């Protein structure tokens, strides 16, 4: 019985996700935007939720399940790396070094910068409130 009551709510949530995905794709296709459709769909849904003021319960529940299965949904794209064979040896070395070292370097620098910026913004806010 509980399932029967939940089903319409879930269907509505899933329908909303699909509708915004399609809306994003259609807009991208119609105006030849360089942004990918689902990303635009996500921004549109965010905007709609901000205007609506809260997240509908069914949508929140469906999204939670989908996000829990995100690894599974991205699995086909992930498995692709084991099938990369059409590269020369030197290219492989350059590629893997660039991916590993490059990612770690940019990761560290981004985090350090962001940490510094957020701390500075927080301390400035504190000074402002003290000043008032």
């Amino acid at each position, binding site marked *: 019985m509980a399932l029967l009551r939940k089903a319409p709510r879930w269907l509505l949530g899933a329908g909303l996700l699909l509708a915004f995905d399609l809306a994003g794709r259609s807009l991208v296709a119609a105006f030849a935007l360089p942004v*990918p459709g689902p990303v635009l769909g996500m921004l549109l849904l965010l905007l709609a939720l901000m205007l609506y003021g809260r997240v509908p319960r069914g949508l929140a529940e469906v*999204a939670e399940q989908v996000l829990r299965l995100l690894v599974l949904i991205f699995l086909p*794209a*992930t498995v692709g790396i084991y099938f990369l064979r059409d590269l020369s040896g030197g290219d492989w070395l350059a590629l893997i070094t660039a991916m590993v070292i490059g990612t770690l370097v*940019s990761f560290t620098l981004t*985090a350090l910068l962001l940490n510094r910026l957020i701390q500075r913004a927080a301390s400035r806010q504190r000074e402002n409130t003290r000043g008032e």
Partner: protein
Amino acid sequence: MGSEWQRWLDQLQQVAGDFLQPLSGAHPLVVLPLNILGFWIGLKIYRRVGSPLLHPVVGGSLLVFAGLVLLGVDFAGYQRGSGLLYLLLGPAVVALAIPLKQNLSVVRKVGWPLMLGLLVGAVLAPLVAVVIALLLGGSKTVLIALTTKSVTTPVALALAQEMHGIQSLAAGVVAFTGIVGAVCGPSLLRRMHITDERVVGFTMGVNAHAIGTVRALEISALCGAFSALAMGLCGALTALVLPLLVTP
């Protein structure tokens, strides 16, 4: 909206059609359970061992790959068999708007530091990688594939097409980058005594896109929200700027 709706229906019909094909190694009824089994066992192992090196993204994909080799299925067949999961890719990206909305007030508080961090991170991630590859004498194919390494897969695939790069290479580079970021990132930051979940999440999203976001969601909803925000913005920014810089 008509034509995209039509295309989605066509895709759905094709996936349904694949189910009616005669049974083979690449049949959806073989490939989908293989995916689910790989994911599920990968998750179990990860929970038991607890090492980020065995994150389901790594363990699960290795298990699936092993299964494909045993069954003698090639990548094209596997992709076809996984059609149902590809259909869910778009809605899954859209679903990232929900943690974003739920944490919006926290995000707003640190608006402009985030924008600056995004700008620097989005430029830095491909730049550092391309410079390293250039120093090691990587070919143009490799360099182009690296420019989209830190954006989420659907964005990278669209960009690779636009720049005449190799799509499977771009997808592979994206996945590998995401794994490196998701596996090493959190412990790296902990070692540097950066524990602010907002910083961890945003850095994960900028550098390790969706796979980083999956990992960030495991840390906390707040961390995941910042990661989803960073991933969306970084994807949009890269998608807008990169085609202007890299002319085919």
